[in-house]
C-alpha cells in the first residue's frame, strides 16, 4: 500500500486525480504551469518513494526529455532572436525556451505516471473496471499470473534439458534454437493447461451471472467532500489556465509571464495528495460520518 491518506481514498477519486494531473500537464507549455506540475509531481513521488527511487526515475526520463528538447530547439527557425546558424540548423532563443518547456512538460507527465504506478495498484484498477469489462479484466489478471509461471516453467525446461542433454552448444545459433524450442513447448503446454483451467472455471459457474466484486472501497463523507472541492478546483484551473495559456506565446518572441490566480488554483489542484492529509486534524463534521469506525480505514487495516 502506498504511503499517505490519499492512497486510501476510493479508486475513482484517485483515478480522477491522475487523469486531471496528467491531462492538465499535457495540455500546456506555459512555463509557470510546467514548473508547478514538475514541482508537485516531484514532491509527491519523493513523498511516496523517497529520494533514491525518485532520482532513478528521473535518470530514466532524461534521454527522452533531452531528445525532445534538442529536437525542438535545434531545428526550429520560428524565433526572432537568432543565436547561431549553420545550413539547416538554426538555433534561436525562443526555440531553446520552447525546448526546455516541452522537456519540462514531458518530465512532469512521466513523474505523474510514476506516482500513478505507485498509488493505482492492480487491485484498484480491476475494482474500477472489473464490473464494466469483466472479460478483459479477467484476462489481465490471468496474464499477470501466467507471466511469472511462464518464466519459471521456462527455467524448469532449461534445467531438465541441461540434465538430459548435458553440454550445451553455446553459440548464438544454438541458443536461439533452444530458446525457440522452449517457447514452442511453453505455448503448447500453457494452452492445454489454461484450457483445463477454463473448463474448471465454467464447471464452477463462471459466466453464468453478472460478475460481482468484493467492495473493499466505500464512499464516505470524506470522498464526497474531497471530490466536490477537487471538481471546483478543476473547473477553476481549466478556465484560468485557458486564458493564461492563450495569452502566452513562444514565437516569434517569448511573452512575459504575468501574475495570475491560476497558478494558485493549479498548485492547489495538483497538491490534492497533500491537502487530504488535513483529515488527520479530526475536524468533527468531516469525520463524524465514519460513525463508530476509527478515523481512517488505513488504521483499521493496519496499513500504516
Amino acid at each position, binding site marked *: 500500500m502506498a504511503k499517505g491518506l490519499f492512497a486510501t481514498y476510493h479508486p475513482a477519486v484517485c483515478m480522477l486525480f491522475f487523469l486531471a494531473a*496528467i*491531462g492538465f500537464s*499535457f*495540455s500546456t507549455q506555459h512555463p509557470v504551469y510546467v514548473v508547478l506540475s514538475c514541482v508537485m509531481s516531484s514532491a509527491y513521488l519523493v513523498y511516496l518513494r523517497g529520494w533514491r527511487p525518485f532520482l532513478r526515475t528521473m535518470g*530514466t526520463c532524461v534521454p527522452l526529455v533531452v*531528445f*525532445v528538447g534538442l*529536437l*525542438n530547439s*535545434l*531545428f*526550429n*527557425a*520560428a524565433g526572432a532572436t537568432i543565436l547561431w546558424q549553420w545550413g*539547416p*540548423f538554426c538555433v534561436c532563443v525562443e526555440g531553446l525556451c*520552447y525546448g526546455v518547456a*516541452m522537456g519540462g*512538460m*514531458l518530465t512532469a*507527465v*512521466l513523474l505523474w*505516471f510514476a506516482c500513478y*504506478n505507485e498509488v493505482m495498484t*492492480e487491485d484498484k484498477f480491476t475494482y474500477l473496471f472489473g464490473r464494466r*469489462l*469483466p*472479460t*478483459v479484466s*479477467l*484476462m*489481465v489478471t*490471468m*496474464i*499477470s499470473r*501466467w*507471466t511469472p*509461471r*511462464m*518464466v519459471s516453467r*521456462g527455467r524448469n525446461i532449461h534445467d531438465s534439458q541441461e540434465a538430459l542433454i548435458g553440454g550445451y552448444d553455446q553459440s548464438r545459433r544454438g541458443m*536461439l*534454437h533452444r530458446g*525457440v524450442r522452449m*517457447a*514452442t513447448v*511453453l*505455448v*503448447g503446454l*500453457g*494452452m492445454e493447461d*489454461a*484450457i483445463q483451467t*477454463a*473448463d474448471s*472455471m*465454467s464447471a464452477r459457474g*463462471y*459466466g453464468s451471472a453478472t460478475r460481482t466484486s468484493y467492495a473493499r472501497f466505500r464512499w464516505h463523507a470524506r470522498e464526497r467532500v474531497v471530490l466536490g472541492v477537487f471538481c471546483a478546483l478543476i473547473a477553476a484551473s481549466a478556465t484560468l489556465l485557458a486564458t493564461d495559456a492563450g495569452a502566452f506565446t*513562444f514565437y516569434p518572441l517569448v511573452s512575459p509571464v504575468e501574475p495570475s490566480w491560476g497558478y494558485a488554483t493549479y498548485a492547489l489542484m495538483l497538491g490534492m495528495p497533500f491537502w487530504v492529509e488535513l483529515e488527520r486534524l479530526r475536524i468533527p463534521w468531516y469525520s463524524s460520518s465514519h460513525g463508530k469506525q476509527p478515523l481512517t480505514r488505513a488504521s483499521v487495516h493496519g496499513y500504516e
Partner: protein
Amino acid sequence: MGRLARVMRIIQPVVLVALPVIMMLWAWLKLADAALVTSVCACAALVPFFVGFEKSRRRARNLMPIVVLTALAVAGRLVFAPVPAIKPIIAIVVMGGLCFGREEGFMVGALAMLVSNVFFGQGPWTPWQMFSMGLVGYLAGVLGNRGRLTQRWSVATFGALMALLYGFILDTWTIVGFVSNANATSVFATYAAGLANNVASAIGTVVFLIPIANTWPRIFKRIKVRYQI
C-alpha cells in the same frame, strides 16, 4: 454475439485508419495541444476493440489462447529486457493474429503492451504502443483469414514490415505530440534516431519468426481440434 459487438466490429477497421489520419492532419494543420489530443484519440481508438471483444461473449476456454500467447509475449519482453530493440513480442503477436483471427490478434498485442508496461513503466506511450501492437495483430489476422501467409518466408517478411510499421507509428507520434513547427529537418532527425532501433527490431522479428512460422500453426491446429475452440 450482441448487436453492440457487431457494430463495434464494423467500426474497428475505420478506427484503425482514422487514428493515423487524424494524427497526421493535426500535425499538418499545426493545431494546438497535439500531445493531449492525440493521446485522448489513441485511448478512444482502443474502445471499439475492447468493447467489441467484451460484448462478443466468448466462452472462457476461447479466451485462453489469447491469455497464454500474451503471457508468453510479456515473459519474452522481460527475458529480453537487457538486449536493446530485439524482442520476440511482434513475432508472437503476428502468430496470434494469424492463427486465431483479427480481434484475437489485436487483444494479444494490446494486452501484451498494457501488462508488460506494468513492469517497464506506464507512460503517455502506453495507448500508442497498445494501438500499434494491436494493429499488427489485427493485420496478421486479416491476412490469416484470407488464407495468405502460409509460407515461412512470407510470414517473416510480413513480420519485418510490421516491426517497421510499429516503429514508424511511434516515431510519428513523437513528432506530432512533442515537436513544434515540425519541418523536414526535425522530421528526418526523429526518424533517423529511431532507424537503428526499428531495423534491429525487424531483423529480430524475422529471426524469431522463421523457426516458428511452420511449427506454431500446427500446434494451434491440434489444440483447436482437440479442445474444439
